[in-house]
Every structure is written in structure tokens, then in C-alpha cells.
């Protein structure tokens, strides 16, 4: 075997090994996530959040329909007040975890309610946006400038969560599902 072939076979070996590792990792991830779960199991994963606080922070930036407020009306909440209402970075992480569960809930409904696709897609996009905000806050915390970043990102993260929960509730309401009361209490 000449040197050129040695490099070629080595590169192919590394390539296939990496590809199989990635494929295996995501395959088992998908198997784990697609394990049969019912409404109660998914619902139990939600962490209780004071929705009045969420709404108070969110409505500081958007109106009741979820549309951004005019620049003059938006913002203005004190940092300490916002921090208290949201529960700090831990509170945001709870929001992030809940958003994952909300998507699972939406997927659960999709199995027998195909119209849920649009709402589920909106929820998924909102949840990813929320994660993005939380990741920025975590990055800011590591660099020690959380005080500066928090109002900007936290409020937007809460708004994302608020919109997402409204979407899910409207979905369940439109479907006349019996579990709506449970969902309303939790969200």
C-alpha cells in the first residue's frame, strides 16, 4: 500500500466512523424521544409557573394579542422588578424546559389532529427562539455582564413563552379537548 492510498483509506475510515457515531447518537436520541408517552406523562413534566408574572413581564412589551407595542408604550420595567417576577436565570431555564414539553404536547395532539401542524410549528419556532435567548443570558452570566443583558433578553424570552402558551391553549380550545382545564391551570 502506497502512502497516498494509506491517507485515502485512513480518511475514509475516520469519515465512516464519524458518520456512524453521529447517526447512532441521533438514532438512539430519536428512539428515546419517540417512546410512548401519554398526556399525563407529558403534563407531569411541566413545571408550575406563575402565569400572572409571565403575563405582566410580557405585556410590558407586547399587547394582549401578542403584537409589539409602540416604542413609547413598551419597556420601562425596573430590572429588579423584572428579575423578581421571572425568578432570575433559573426562572428562564424553567421556561426553556417547559417549552420542550409544550412541543411534545403539541406533537401528541398532532397524532389525531392533523390541523395542529401549523400551531406546533409556531410553538417549535418560539421554543427555539426562547432557547436562543436563554443561551445568550447564560453566556452573559459567564462573562459577568448579566446585569446589562438581562432586561433585553429576558423580557423577549418571556414574550416568546407567553405567545407559545397562548397558541397551545387556543389549539386545545379549538379541539374541544377535555384536558383544557388541566392545561389552563398549569400554564
Amino acid at each position, binding site marked *: 500500500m502506497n502512502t*497516498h*492510498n494509506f491517507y485515502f*483509506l485512513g480518511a*475514509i475510515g475516520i469519515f465512516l466512523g464519524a458518520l456512524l457515531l453521529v*447517526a447512532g447518537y441521533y438514532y438512539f436520541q*430519536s428512539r428515546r424521544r419517540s417512546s410512548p408517552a401519554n398526556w399525563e406523562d407529558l403534563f407531569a413534566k411541566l413545571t408550575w409557573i406563575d402565569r400572572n408574572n409571565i403575563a405582566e413581564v410580557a405585556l410590558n412589551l407586547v399587547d394582549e*394579542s401578542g403584537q409589539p407595542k409602540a416604542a413609547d408604550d413598551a419597556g420601562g420595567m425596573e430590572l429588579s422588578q423584572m428579575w423578581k417576577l421571572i425568578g432570575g436565570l433559573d426562572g428562564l431555564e424553567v421556561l426553556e424546559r417547559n417549552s420542550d414539553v409544550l412541543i411534545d404536547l403539541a406533537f401528541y395532539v398532532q397524532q389525531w389532529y392533523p390541523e395542529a401542524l401549523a400551531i406546533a410549528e409556531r410553538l417549535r419556532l418560539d421554543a427555539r427562539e426562547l432557547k436562543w435567548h436563554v443561551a445568550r443570558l447564560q453566556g452573559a452570566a459567564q462573562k459577568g455582564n448579566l446585569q446589562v443583558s438581562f432586561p433585553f433578553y429576558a423580557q423577549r424570552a418571556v414574550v416568546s413563552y407567553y405567545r407559545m402558551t397562548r397558541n397551545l*391553549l387556543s389549539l386545545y380550545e379549538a379541539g374541544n379537548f377535555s384536558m383544557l382545564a388541566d392545561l389552563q391551570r398549569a400554564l
Partner: protein
Amino acid sequence: MHLTDLDLLFWAAGFLENLGLLFVLWYRRRARSFPFFTALITLIVIKTVVLYFVLHYGSKDSYFYTYWSLTVLDTTLQLCVVYEIASRVFKPLDVWADDVRSSYAWLLGLSLCIAFGLTWLASPPARTWMQAFATKGNLFAAVLQSELFVAMMALSMDARLPWRTHVAKIAQGLGAYSLLGVLIETGHSYFGVGRQLPGFLILSHIRMAAYLVCVNYWIINLWRAERPARIMTSEMREKMFALQTLVEYDLQDLRSRKKL
């Protein structure tokens, strides 16, 4: 060109099984959902027939050019099938999902770079430049396809986009086949191509056997019914649009909260 009994057996089995798959695609009305995949299987059937007649009634050169022309078309259609699968997964609402568009483009670029790199490293012992080009082309296509299937799987899991049953089954079959294809094309690049080489024959038989397994897998799974479709009719889309714009619950909720 002399064909052994095993060659003829694989050839006949492949032809009949592809016909069976085409029957399933049309009879079970999957062809409309997967036009590129149906076109690919149709091409493979046509390719088998054409090559059989060219082999018996044509010259060695005409077989060579027919084989490689159809192989280029075959590879192009395989890449179209990759696009077809990606569009089914990453376009849940008939448009590319916002959050995966850039990631997919980035992964596509990376996959192309890796495929080019590995192809550049290969130096197949070929007699003609065309043979070398074809061997490298096959390696490039196999590497690119296997990368794209794994990238799609990773990206959809990361973005939490679901796969519909039939899309997943087609992707699993093609993904596994393309991964094996990388190994086989690596063998071709190392040992060379030509029916006089024992290594080439063994690899060809392995490829044919793997393909037959894939076709059986597709026949069984595409025959089976899928879970309720998520592709929306215009009526459903309007309904969902109305749902999205309905903020009645939001208003009721907020009004009741104001009363508290």
C-alpha cells in the same frame, strides 16, 4: 462480457423486485407523493432492460457509454430524492422552516467540501481517464448522499421536526445503501474496476444483495398505510390560519385576569 449464473440471478431478481416496487408505488398511490423516488425506480427498471439488450446486441463500447450515461442519470435522480426527502421533512408548512434553512445550507456546503476532499484523495487504478472519472464520481455521490442523510437526521432531531412514516422508510433504505456504497466505492477506488478483478465482482455482488434488501424493505413499508397525513389541503390551511389569528382565548383569559 461473460455473465455468471449468480450475475444473471441478481439481475433478474433486481428487475422483478423493482417492477414490484413500481407496482406498489402506483397501486398504493405513493408515486404522487414521491415523484423523484418513483422516477428513480423507473429509471432503474429501464436501465436493466436497456443494458440487457445492449449487452446482447451492441458493442463493448456502446455498453460502456450506455452504462455510464444511465449511471450519471441514476446518481442525479438519487440526489433529487435526497432533495425530495429534505423538502418533506424541513418544509412542514410547504415552506422551508426558518430555523433550519441556514443550518441545512451550511451542512450542505460542509458535505460537499468533505466529498470533494475524499474524492480528491482517491486514486483509482484505471485504464482510461473516463474510468477514473466514473469511479471518482461514484465515490463522490456515495459520500455526499451518506453525509446528507446523516445531516438530515441530525438536523431534524435537533430542530425536532417529525418524519412521516414513508419518508422515513425511503430515507432509511437509501441512507443505509449509501453508507454501504461508500465502502464499496472505496473498494473500487482501491482495487480498481473491471470484471476481470475478483475484488470488483465480490463488491458488485454485495452491492446488488444490499440493494435487493432495500427494495424489499421499501415494498413492505410502502405497501403499509401511513399515519394520518399532515400535508394540508387548502381548506385545512385556511382553518389553521384562522386558528392562529384567533386570539379569543387570549382576550378571554386576559379579561378574566383583569377582573381578579
